[in-house]
């Protein structure tokens, strides 16, 4: 059972500029569930001091 209701997913799609009629809302709700739980597991491992690198720099110096 998804944490997202179909009408909620439809509203999110509309807000992002997409037409909900183009989509299987129940299927998309499952994908959203997976992604939101994934990011939760990342968040749980971070400390307040972990800052994002907004411009990625591969160098180690």
């Amino acid at each position, binding site marked *: 059972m998804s944490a997202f209701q179909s009408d909620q997913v439809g509203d999110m799609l509309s807000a992002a500029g997409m037409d909900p009629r183009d989509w299987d809302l129940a299927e998309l709700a499952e994908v959203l569930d997976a992604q939101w739980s*994934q990011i939760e597991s990342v968040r749980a491992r971070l400390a307040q001091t972990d800052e994002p690198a907004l411009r990625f720099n591969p160098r*180690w110096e």
Partner: protein
Amino acid sequence: MGMSSRGAIADLGRRIRSREVSAREVADRSLAAAEELNPMLQAFVIIDHQGARQAADRVDRQLARGIDPGPLAGIPVGVKDIVDMAGHPTRCGSPAYSETPAATDAPVVERLREAGAVIVGKTVTHELACGVTSPPASNPWDTERVPGGSSGGSGAAVAAGITVAALGSDTGGSIRIPAGLCGTAGLKGTYGRVPRSGVAALSWSLDHIGPLAATPADCILVQAVISGHDPSDPTTLTDFPPDGYPEPEEGLEGVRLGVIERYRHPLIQPAVAEAFEAAVRVLADLGAEVVPVEISELDLVMEVEFTLVSAEGAAYHRDLMVEAPHLIDPAIRGLFATGLMMPTEHYLTALRGRERIRRAMRACFAENGLTAVLTPTLPAVAARKDQDSFDYPTAGEEVILAYVRTTAPANLTGQPALSVPCGFDPSGLPIGLQIMGRPLAETEIARIGQAYHQAANWDLTPPISA
């Protein structure tokens, strides 16, 4: 092909330069091989007879006049079909893309041409460079199996000896995956080393362009040609050491290699584990010191990788998602849809996780005094085309997750990573060894890979080959 194009670039280049064989002869053989094998392999979307012959004739004319045609004089190469080549459409493996020919060459193509390379054609990509199977391309070791992806056509073309090298792109392993599954070398350099302008993006902060070729030394030769700052891509680095050719006679004394423990077991096919451990022993026999290492932050790789790809891929393909989502494969469409609906905080959390991983990798190198780290390129060999998952002795894993788990860390850290063939499973499918180095240390990992390649001396000629 009679005369094989499987030899190292330096060898074939020497024969062309000495006019033992003409660039035109080499191009004709490569084109003939492409025509003959493409019905089986589906490696190319375009075979460019006219362009290849013109380029080869130019090389021959230059040589006849005593002019140096460049470091890739007469070398047949393929270019992944997400890279602009003037006069040909860039289809990106997608029905949504225009058939309108690109007006100009991408900088990497321009550099290949200036170096004397002969571009034989454009190679098949997984749709939008977002996947690991590259249909309809087949693996030359077993045409019922995938060549990997997303640069699957490039892997198949090089493994089958149609071209000596090919360009791929790599956002979560898309050069190293086909290299590992097809039995070629493949190099994803340091982020920012090779310009990406004129190349369709998947994920700007993770995308890399690089070569697949028969050997690590060949990869370095191609990368040396295509790398370097380009003002059209502001992410390209300036002021870095050139790619040096790895000297084959050098041993590995003084080299310290870390083996990342989590990739040794348990999510790995037994034959892959055996081949990997045997390769580590060969490197130790060559003089390298090998130590086990672990990086707990690698737990975050898949979540961070897929969050960044979904957000950045969605932003790049937004117009397509809004106007014609039905033209995109459902799985890719779903990934991008979540990216368009993603809260900003999720994207920033993924960036924070990425920085955590990058710092942990750097610390691992520093604390252990490492030259490079080793992993199996992939935990499994080439999947059947209808296969969705692998069954390891103690668990199962989806194909897409299995093929990205070991390769994506180097996309997140931006460090260079090389795949080199390291054996076969009992059914004769290739297995790859991954060597990940410090930023801008491509030559170092190529030296390690080349030393291994020469010591192991695998026969890498597949059943379907030129």
